[in-house]
């Protein structure tokens, strides 16, 4: 799978001028130093060598990967890139939630591929915090898109309190009970 970047990087609502991670093609030699981004295939073939480098490590996962087979290794990485080959292919949403919520991954989780403004809300709620967007001048609109809705119905790893739990908390407060934990 390709490591080619398709556009500017948006992280925590702001454009990141220079990506700290240098993509390294599968057949290219690893640079002596600096953060690198490698494919899942390369990671599988060169685990020792890659782990031995004293620099941040990023990995691109194919969206066909069952992350249950990878999750235990997630914490070794500073960056995990998940792919949307087409905006309508939503497998990476599940991968993202599993990595964040099941395996407790805390590093950067970046969306790449066909990333559209109208999906940022879904992506962020699923655990992504960085997005490769099509154009720099779209950054503002993209940053706004994650704020499309003031409330949420579902609890996810983003920590927002669901409508159900908000109502329950309000009810319990009114009735002098302790708030239920989310």
């Amino acid at each position, binding site marked *: 799978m390709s490591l080619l970047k398709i556009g500017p990087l948006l992280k925590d609502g702001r454009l990141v001028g220079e990506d700290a991670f240098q993509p390294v093609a599968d057949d290219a030699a690893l640079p002596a130093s600096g953060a690198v981004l490698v494919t899942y295939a390369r990671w599988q073939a060169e685990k020792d060598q890659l782990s031995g480098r004293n620099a941040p490590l990023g990995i691109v996962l194919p969206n066909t990967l*069952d992350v249950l087979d990878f999750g235990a290794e997630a914490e070794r990485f500073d960056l995990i890139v998940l792919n949307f080959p087409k*905006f*309508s*292919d*939503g*497998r990476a*949403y*599940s*991968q993202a*939630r*599993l990595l964040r*919520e*099941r395996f407790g991954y805390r590093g950067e989780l970046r969306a790449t591929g066909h990333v*559209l403004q*109208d*999906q940022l*809300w*879904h*992506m*962020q*709620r*699923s655990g992504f915090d960085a997005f490769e967007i099509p154009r720099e001048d779209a950054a503002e609109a993209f940053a706004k898109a994650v704020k*499309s*809705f*003031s*409330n*949420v*119905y*579902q*609890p*996810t790893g983003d920590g927002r309190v*669901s*409508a*159900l*739990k*908000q*109502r*329950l908390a309000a*009810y*319990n407060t009114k009735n002098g009970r302790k708030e*239920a934990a*989310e």
Partner: protein
Amino acid sequence: MYQYDEIDQTMVDERVAQFRDQVARRLTGEISEDEFKPLRLQNGLYLQLHAYMLRIAIPYGTLSSRQLRGLAQIGCTYDRAWGHFTTRQNLQYNWIKLEDTADALADLAKIQMHAIQTSGNCIRNTTTDQFAGAAHDEIEDPRVWCEIIRQWSTFHPEFSFLPRKFKIAVTGSPNDRAAVRVHDIGLRMHKNDAGEIGFEVIVGGGLGRTPFIGKTIRDFLPKQDLLSYLEAILRVYNQFGRRDNLYKARIKILVHEIGIETMREKVEAEFAASKDGALKLPQEAIAQIAAQFAPPAFENLSGISADYANAFRTDFEFGLWARRNTFKHKQPGYSIVTISLKKEGAPPGDASAEQMNAVADIADRYSFGEIRVTHEQNLVLAHVKQADLPAVFKALKAYDLATPNIGLASDIIACPGLDYCALANARSIPIAQQIALRFRNWERAHDIGELKIKISGCINACGHHHVGHIGILGVDKAGEEFYQITLGGAADEQAAIGDLIGPSLNTQDAVDAIDTLVETYLRLRKSSDERFLDTYRRVGLAPFKEAVYVSA
């Protein structure tokens, strides 16, 4: 009835604003039609043969009279003063302009309605028994669970770009009126030996090109685990459902290909890892939602109303209607009334704005201001005092809404077909109309008894032809409309896919064949109590096939 609070209202208002912006970006060309399509679809907007069609969600088929009047008004403002009720408990407008859509959605939001997720590859409007909360045979009101599912599935961040559309249906009665075995997920409420109520979870049912009856993945799921379990199924489907072929992308194909045992292992593993997490439903939260579906203030009635009994004896037309279009209520002295949208000659499921307003008025006066929409494309007044039935009949009759044909041969499900739909191969409405005409003689129709005829204009099976006692599927043969006939399908608790009787027939022959099939049934049945479906199950396909093809 469930009422939006500030959270729900803000959500639909923000949705309108979001869609207004999306339409604007489409009109300036900032986003391509390809990119716009899923956005409009998830707002219920289809591009059809002649115009845009807007599909409105009617969650679990429940409407207030105010909402029904609002739908009539929106039909007048943006359409041709009509609405079409569908098998998915939706309402469709057929003549909408793209540039009006955001305004129509804004008007809907004012009556706590929307078009969210009525299309697209996401979790669709959850459907249920139209008699929920009223039927005498109910274990528990399923609308509470439909509302919990509605909230969980609305804008679900993980499941808005699934391999294909996803439909969930719930029944709270052992007599399945929600066709749960032909949904992606069907939920049946059961009481176990310990007296606890929970769900049987059925997965992988569906019609269309490859029809399947759903399989039970879990016999009994405790209520508080419902959302965790649904999320587990959806997560497995999102990751492992096929995306290489549109026709093989539904969960039924995944279940079929990997087998229900493997599917169960995957889902149960996912469920085990998440069941005690944030999705576990606290008892008080369930109770808060259930409180909104509390029964209305019924009167304490006993015995049979004298007015009702008298009308039943003396007014023949009323008696016919009351026998056919009412159903036993759990509250003594009350009945459930089904309003037929199948008057002969009318497209099944269509209602004029005038009729919608009339039904809203009648509901206000006689049924606590509440209306239901059925998957068989009729309307329901769920709580009518038996003493009021004669007055309700009269009021409905004035608007052509009292056809006494519920469950009979002319109570046909039909998709819009080639008259409206861009996917159709043949027309459905005219053939439904012609068949209904054949059974206009009430004596014959009532003698035939329960007979479910379902018509689809293409393989996508929106008219549920696979599960019709008689199913009719429109096909295109060198530019001519032909119809394939299936027998023995059922959508109830004994769901079955119908058997094809033989080569397809042209329009005239197909209509004649329905007559022949019915006559064959009348000849073969053991008694007038044996329904068409029962006779078919007893004698099989051969005599019916012979009657149609030999006599032809």
